[in-house]
């Protein structure tokens, strides 16, 4: 697990206290919050409980909150992370999930509750009598609160790259007794992303991409998780033109975006903000942007583009497809 993840998690609570001072940091935090809306497609889950092995326990794992020992295979997991929820169901641990937070909208049969990961409440979580809680953010000191109540906690902050994401999937596999399925899921995602990369035509290499997180033109540069996907696909990310102090999620100037003339625009604000290829074409001065002229405005799923679970392969395939022909 990357050593910088705990730092990212800590800065989360710090940002809350100093929101006025750390506005860019807060912006970046908000950008990585899971987006809204309902899920698009179902995915295989559940049924494979047969391969889980209680023999692998106790197991000691290292998450962003340090070493965590699980004495027995968890049977009542509370997932406060939409990414973790997707992963748990994808690796066959869905049956062990007792409750998920209000943003965990995928897969459709996840036991969604009104638990909020943004303002987590230890009492509300403990009411589900969990034997494992998975979190992506340590808001309001929730990790300490839960640990004080002797509830095992795995804090898995935002992945910085694909390897981080794979490591988290494998860790959740070990934590739930589904290590083999997790390894399969990782291999599958890895293969699909590789095929997507291979499918990109040679003349698409070096084309410019603009990843849009909101109609205010917030974007994500190559240092971010989603930006690393564009790097893999051989695209040039126009958000990299922003200076370092603007963080990984700069708000780009509209004139800059127009002048850069991106060949591909990926909208990760279709659900939150109702953006579409049509609304982009209507924006002032966007009509002549190559991506708009050539019809290469990808209407991505906000959720898929803001999480680091198995569906990231879907995202890579969608983008790669837009680069064909």
């Amino acid at each position, binding site marked *: 697990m990357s050593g910088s993840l705990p730092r990212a998690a800590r800065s989360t609570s710090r940002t809350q206290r100093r929101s006025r001072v750390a506005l860019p940091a807060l912006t970046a935090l908000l950008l990585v919050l899971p987006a809204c809306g309902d899920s698009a497609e179902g995915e295989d889950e559940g049924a494979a409980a047969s391969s889980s092995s209680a023999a692998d326990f106790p197991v000691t794992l290292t998450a962003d909150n340090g070493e965590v020992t699980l004495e027995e295979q968890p049977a009542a997991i509370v997932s406060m992370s939409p990414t973790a929820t997707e992963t748990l169901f994808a690796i066959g641990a869905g049956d062990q999930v007792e409750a998920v937070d209000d943003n965990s909208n995928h897969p459709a049969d996840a036991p969604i509750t009104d638990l909020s990961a943004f303002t987590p409440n230890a009492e509300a979580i403990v009411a589900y009598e969990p034997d494992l809680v998975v979190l992506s953010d340590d808001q309001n000191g929730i990790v300490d609160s839960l640990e004080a109540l002797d509830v095992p906690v795995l804090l898995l902050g935002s992945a910085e790259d694909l390897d981080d994401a794979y490591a988290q999937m494998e860790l959740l596999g070990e934590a739930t007794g589904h290590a083999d399925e997790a390894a399969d899921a990782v291999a599958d995602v890895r293969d699909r992303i590789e095929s997507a990369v291979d499918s990109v035509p040679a003349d698409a290499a070096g084309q410019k991409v603009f990843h849009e997180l909101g109609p205010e033109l917030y974007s994500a540069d190559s240092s971010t998780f989603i930006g690393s996907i564009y790097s893999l696909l051989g695209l040039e990310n126009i958000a990299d033109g922003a200076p370092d102090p603007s963080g990984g999620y*700069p708000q780009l100037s509209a004139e800059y975006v127009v*002048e850069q003339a991106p060949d591909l625009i990926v909208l990760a604000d279709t659900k939150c903000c109702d953006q579409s290829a049509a609304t982009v074409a209507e924006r002032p001065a966007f009509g002549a942007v190559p991506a708009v002229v050539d019809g290469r405005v990808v209407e991505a799923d906000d959720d898929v583009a803001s999480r680091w679970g198995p569906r990231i392969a879907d995202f890579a395939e969608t983008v790669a497809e837009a680069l064909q022909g």
Partner: protein
Amino acid sequence: MSTTTSRTRPGRTTAGPGAVRPRRSTAVVTGAAGLALVVAVLAGIWVGAVPLAPGGVVLTLADRALGPFGVDVPGGLEGTQAAVLLQLRLPRVVLAVLVGAALAVSGAAYQGVFRNPLADPYLLGAAAGAGLGATLTIAYSPVQSVGPVGIVPLAAFAGALFGVFCALALGSVAGGAHSPTLLLAGIAVAAFLAAAQNLVQQQNSDDLREIYGWMIGQLGSSQWSDVLLVLPYLGVACAVLLCCGRALDVLAVGDDEAGSLGVHPGRLRLLVILAASLATASAVAVSGLIGFVGLVVPHIVRRLAGGSYTRVLPLSLLMGGAFLVLADLIARVILSPAELPLGVVTAFVGAPFFAVLLWAGARRR
């Protein structure tokens, strides 16, 4: 800036307040403020994330200005650069002028009406009401726009007026338009609406980024349609406010004295509050909540040109426009091609500047 020995040099620094307060002709200060606005606008048009040739900018603008008269000016910008100038940068600068002018003149008017230097345009619940309106529509509205007008600006506009209306209603129930009562009513309404806004926001954490982006104020997505949207309201409101300068000067000596001089304090207060709130609401609708301008620009003007509202109101109009154009310029340029939130820049630039003015003023006395 003045050194420690500058005590005996009144009028040396351009920002020097106290000593220039007595007299300097209205034409001179108005001209200076107008010049500041023109310089700010020119800078705002020239500088941006995309470098544009100054000559090309001038020729393009001349071409557009003279086009209706059948005159073609060749040699202007073309293609993307022309689009950047005419569709992105120009409306943004114009909108910054309008919003800054509206907030500053409203702030000056509020300070006059309440005889309180801490008053700003958001005092009577306009900001909290607009925030609640915007948050509600971002969180719950199924549609994005009504006709050509975005639903969020509409809700912000309505919310701002609603907040002020509640404050006025509560104030009049609680003891007429007497200014301390009204002030307290405004604080109560603002606190309540802000709490409601926070509640809605907490319930809809998935919309946080959008709500947050609106709350800190921005001009990044300015369009000509925004300019057309606010211009009528701003025009009417500013005309009313500019006519009230004399009356506000009279009101400054006290309600009873003003009454004996033929000014009806209650009616004047209501008229000024309504006009200022209309200007504020339309500004908030297109730009979100931009702090500091309405509070500090009138004070800067007072320090430079004296306290008479016949001067403070029109000069706040001009200086507010200039100030916001420059603040937006900094917001656009300092991390270019990324942007800073405008509301951060107004305070970041304005607060130290204001502190220097206060300090210089204190040294003079």
